[in-house]
């Protein structure tokens, strides 16, 4: 191997890489949905009146933010079968991403909830609305609307973290790239390309978040 940089030899493998990219996209989309749902629940718990709920949610966030993702992933991947839960690598990966994503997005959503003007909350309470309706129709719509941009960066983080799923033999984008690299003996080209692909992907996500934010807030701010 000489000091060449020849990306054209990767052309036949693009289809394979595309399949990996699709798997990444699918895993991330599912994890985003799961993480968002979890994040909303946890954020509500962290802003609840009950100190028990706050504590429990606080511990969950604390753990998932201070333990490396790969350790979380291995814990689930090797541990779940021990207690009889047989999940595919894909399912385990999505689960792990959702749990981690939930912790980070709960931070963002919690900030959004705390930013709801107390007067608006009072108006809702005073009109006799039950608590669930207040959360569903007033608090969450307002909080989520202001959280779109920071949630975008949580999603970016998710996409980058998804590369770690290759460590549990999942053939998402990074996993597929490893195979291509060993096939072509051109790891530099493969991984450089991969770097650019991920950077483009995350840039696209950030852009979409910005667009979504502007659309949602067109007439409100």
């Amino acid at each position: 191997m000489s000091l060449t940089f020849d990306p054209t030899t990767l052309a036949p493998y693009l289809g394979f890489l595309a399949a990996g990219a699709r798997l990444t996209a699918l895993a991330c989309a599912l994890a985003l949905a799961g993480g968002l749902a979890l994040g909303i629940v946890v954020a509500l718990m962290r802003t609840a009146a009950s100190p028990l709920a706050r504590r429990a949610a606080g511990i969950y966030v604390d753990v998932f933010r201070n333990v490396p993702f790969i350790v979380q992933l291995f814990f689930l991947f090797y541990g779940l079968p021990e207690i009889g839960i047989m999940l595919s690598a894909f399912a385990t990966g999505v689960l792990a991403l959702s749990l981690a994503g939930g912790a980070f997005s709960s931070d963002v959503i919690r900030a959004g909830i705390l930013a709801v003007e107390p007067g608006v909350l009072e108006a809702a309470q005073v009109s006799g609305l039950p608590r669930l309706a207040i959360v569903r129709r007033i608090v969450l719509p307002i909080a989520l609307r202001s959280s779109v941009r920071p949630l975008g960066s949580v999603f970016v983080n998710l996409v980058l973290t998804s590369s770690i799923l290759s460590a549990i033999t999942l053939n998402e984008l990074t996993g597929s790239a490893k195979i291509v690299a060993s096939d072509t003996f051109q790891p530099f080209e493969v991984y450089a390309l991969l770097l650019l692909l991920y950077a483009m992907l995350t840039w696209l996500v950030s852009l979409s978040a910005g667009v979504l934010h502007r659309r949602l807030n067109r007439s409100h701010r």
Partner: protein
Amino acid sequence: MRYADFTSLDLLLLLQGLGVSAALFAATTVIGTAIGLAWALLRYYRTPLLAPGVAVLAELLKNSPVLVQLFLVFFGLPVLLETDLSPEQAALITLSANTAAFIYVIAVSAIESVGRDQLETARVFGLNRWQTLRRVVAPQAAAFGLGPLAGLLVNQLQVTSLISVIGVIDLTKAGAILNQRTLKPFIVWTVIGLLYYLMARLIARTCARAESRLRGHSQWKGL
């Protein structure tokens, strides 16, 4: 069917892994901070070609997975440069560069948080750019940057766990070895997780203490 139970040698393995993780974290933090600050200086001095180049590099490092960066350096560089690279060397290079990118962003943002009027005042008093930086901007920027720095350090600690994938025998790799041998994933990974957690807490506590000392100092100045 258990392979083997835990032995006291496992404790040694664990400590060794812990040491490797901690050492690599410390080394890459120091090197990364130095490089990142140097990059921020380039931006402060608005060096043509280098400043924007560094900005692009930082964006790339920030917006791509660390694992892929590790693969690129460990698998890719040796082929490109026709040299050999040990896993530890690759880890050092990659994580230092990655840390540098984030330090750069924090430093730039912290410098920009120092009000424009400070810079103007310094200029009016005749200070040159370096003096302004050293006496006026840097102390204030440091106070701004400490918060995000704490978060970054905790994050980079987690990131060190990825070096296990390219074969460095760090704390995570030690866990993988133990897991494979004893087949007790719950115990192994909980212990590993706990050790990382404690290290992260230690870092957070140290940064908080540094911040209160820095803040306290500046408050006294205010009197």
